[in-house]
């Protein structure tokens, strides 16, 4: 839910955040991933945290059969036998709405939606407690997207897997998540329960994103686009990262980075903005 510039920092290297100066631990299932050595990191990726990428065609080796792709990681790490791995692969293929015949196929022989489901099945092979999904449905059309999302929801229930879903589709985020973090320029602009964030945004960036989304319910015609571009992350940021594009910005925004503060009466809903209260008012007035 952010611009491409800040996604990689948290997501692409999600299993190992190599940020200089990151002092605090990043805990995945109690393990500090920043402190793990290569072997233990590999074990973590096999059995604890798994990732689903946006483009299955780019993430799955086109020269190997789907069955090999599914069983490779668990077999290589020796957590299971080949036979058990194949049985597990069939079980998961069925869970994602495919069948054992897919094992013998090559990625080029199935559709994009089917291959994305193969990737989800592969991610579940090691019984992860955490599933990281980076725009897993962006390349899919809406009906396939609904099917993949339904599947992720079911699998979450059945296997008790936590899901971290990275997307720039606000309505999708609102529909599937419990909590939402809105990021801008590498920082968390706003966080809170999904319905609260989308119904009563407390950060101008969230409000701007909501206004610029072409929606089925809104009136047709011009969208409320946000002018300008995200700041260059190579330069030092003083003040609020969104100030240059923000209609509410005042002098303090350029000078001082806003702290993340809870909304009055809603301790769970936080926003890093000097003018959250003004935003709430204008939204109601409009």
């Amino acid at each position, binding site marked *: 839910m*952010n*611009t*491409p510039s800040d996604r990689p920092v948290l997501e692409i290297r999600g299993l190992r955040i190599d940020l200089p100066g990151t002092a605090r631990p990043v805990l995945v299932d109690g393990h500090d991933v920043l402190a793990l050595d290569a072997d233990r990191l590999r074990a973590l990726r096999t059995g604890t945290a798994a990732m689903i990428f946006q483009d299955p065609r780019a993430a799955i080796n086109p020269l190997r059969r789907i069955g090999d792709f599914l069983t490779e990681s668990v077999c290589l790490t020796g957590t299971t036998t080949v036979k058990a791995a194949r049985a597990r692969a069939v079980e998961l293929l069925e869970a994602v709405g495919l069948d054992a015949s897919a094992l013998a196929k090559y990625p080029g022989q199935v*559709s*994009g*939606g089917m291959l994305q489901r193969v990737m989800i099945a592969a991610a579940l092979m090691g019984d992860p407690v955490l599933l990281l999904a980076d725009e897993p449905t962006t390349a*899919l*059309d*809406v*009906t*396939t*997207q*609904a*099917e993949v*999302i*339904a*599947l992720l*929801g*079911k699998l979450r229930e059945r296997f008790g897997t936590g899901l971290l879903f990275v997307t*720039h*589709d*606000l*309505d*999708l985020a*609102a*529909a*599937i998540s419990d909590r939402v973090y809105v990021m801008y320029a590498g920082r968390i602009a706003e966080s809170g329960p999904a*319905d609260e964030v989308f119904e009563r945004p407390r950060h101008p960036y969230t409000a*701007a*994103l909501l206004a*610029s*989304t*072409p*929606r*089925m*319910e809104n009136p*047709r*015609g*011009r*969208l*409320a*686009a*946000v*002018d300008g*571009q995200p700041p260059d992350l190579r330069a030092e940021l003083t003040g609020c990262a969104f100030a240059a594009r923000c209609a509410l910005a005042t002098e303090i925004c350029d000078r001082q980075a806003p702290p993340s503060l809870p909304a009055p009466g809603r301790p769970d809903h936080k926003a890093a903005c000097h003018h959250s209260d003004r935003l709430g008012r204008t939204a109601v007035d409009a």
Partner: protein
Amino acid sequence: MPENDEKSPYGDNAEHVLVVKGLRRTFGAVRAVDDVSFTLPPGGSLGIVGESGSGKTTTARIVVGLERADEGEVHVRGRSRTARGRGRAHRLARAREVQMVFQDPLLSLDPRTGVEAALRETLRLHFPDRDHGLRIRELLDQVGLGTRAADALPRQLSGGQRQRVAIARALAVEPAVLVLDEAVAALDVSVQAQILNLLADIREQTSIGYLFITHDLGVVRCVTDDVIVMRHGAVVEAGPTAEVFAGPRHPYTRLLLESVPRPGWDPERIAVARRAL
């Protein structure tokens, strides 16, 4: 395919900037495009929606001339595009009629050619006798790019700026029809809104017609006047966008509309409905 019988849509080709009649294209046993017809008035905007493999991109490629139709006709400004091009001048004239903007400008722009040089190359090819400097400034201005962007290479630009360059290059030859194949799909929402507004401005200023290929129904609703819904190569529903979206008649159109995430969205029910269809 639903026909608009009273208006006799294909009788008067001159009235429409683009007339597509009975297109068919098969790849082996697959009927990728199966009897597809539609028209586009000058300054109109037509959306083609459908899932992957529904034939929408093949239809667009036939209109542009990147793909050949087995059967059917494509007329632009009353002239047929079906016959093979005879000679360089003829092919260039045909290229000027319809231009295309692709999904990924990083792939459709030459990574080693700067913005100004890319525009100049196109202009020199099509209009060798004109003054290009003025026209380049005009085009950059039209798509909201500053003169600073003129010297930049594609990789030095943001995704939104690159797509502006691709649009400027398509507009350079003053086409009658602009085909946009998922042209805003790769952009994030704030940039996407800028580009959609830009396209709306251009349509107001010129009488260019848009053929908008996308699977994002929110985008279709925002930027098109009419829409056709394709499934398995055939048109299952066609009409004014507002009407089709307000009262979809075909079960597939209903499924598409229900699949758009929104509050109270139930993906499980959609998945069941999809398999039943």
